[in-house]
C-alpha cells in the first residue's frame, strides 16, 4: 500500500480537537489517520507539547508525512516550537497548515484518504480558507 499522509488537529480544547478529528475522519471514510491533541496534560484549556508530539507520532505511521492544523494562538506557537527544536525530526516531514480548523481538517482528510501527497493535503487545507458554505 502507498504511503498515506496523516493529520493532526491541535486545539486549546480536548473536546474540540477530538470532535473535529472524529468528523474529519468520518468524512474521509475512515481511510485516514486523524489524531487529536487538545488541552493541557492536566485537562485544562491550553496546549501541550507532549500531546502534540504524541499525536504527530501516531499520524506519521502512514509514512507519507503529517499535516498539522492548529486552532489559534498557543496551538501555533507550540507546534512551531516543537518544529524549531527538531523534536519531531525523526517522524518524517511535518507541515504546519495555515487553514480554517474544521473546513481545513475535512478537506485535508478527504484529500489524504484519496491518496493525496503531502503537498496535495497541505494545499487542500490552505484552500479551505476560500471555500464558502452557502
Amino acid at each position, binding site marked *: 500500500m502507498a504511503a498515506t499522509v496523516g493529520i493532526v488537529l491541535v486545539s486549546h480544547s480536548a473536546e474540540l480537537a477530538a470532535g473535529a478529528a472524529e468528523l474529519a475522519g468520518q468524512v474521509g471514510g475512515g481511510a485516514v489517520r486523524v489524531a487529536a491533541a487538545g488541552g493541557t496534560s492536566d485537562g485544562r484549556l491550553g496546549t501541550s507539547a507532549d500531546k502534540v508530539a504524541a499525536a504527530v507520532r501516531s499520524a506519521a505511521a502512514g509514512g507519507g508525512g503529517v499535516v498539522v492544523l492548529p486552532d489559534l494562538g498557543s496551538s501555533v506557537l507550540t507546534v512551531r516550537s516543537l518544529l524549531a527544536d527538531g523534536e519531531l525530526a525523526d517522524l518524517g516531514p511535518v507541515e504546519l497548515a495555515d487553514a480554517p480548523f474544521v473546513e481545513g481538517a*475535512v478537506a485535508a482528510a478527504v484529500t489524504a484518504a484519496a491518496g493525496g501527497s503531502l503537498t496535495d493535503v497541505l494545499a487542500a487545507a490552505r484552500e479551505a480558507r476560500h471555500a464558502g458554505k452557502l
Partner: protein
Amino acid sequence: MPASSEATVTLTGDLHARPAGALSMAAARYAAEIVLVAGGREANAKSVLAVMQLGASSGQPVTVRAAGADAAAAVAAVTEALTAATKVGD
C-alpha cells in the same frame, strides 16, 4: 481534443458532509477534470468543500461533466456516488 462525458442524476439523498466526502474521494481517483452542476452553480467534484457548498438536496437534478482521457469512467463513478447519497439525518 480530450474525451468528454456527461450525465445527469436526480438526487434521492442530500450532498451533506459524508456523501460529499465519498464523492470527492471517488472523483480523486480519475485524472479527468470533473464538474458538478446543480441549481445553476458549478463545483469541482474533487473539492469536498465545493461539493458541500452546492447545497444540493433530494429531488434536485445534478449534472456531472468530465473532460480527460478517463472521463467516461469518472462520470460513472461520480454518478454512482451521487446515487448513493443519503438524506440528512439518515
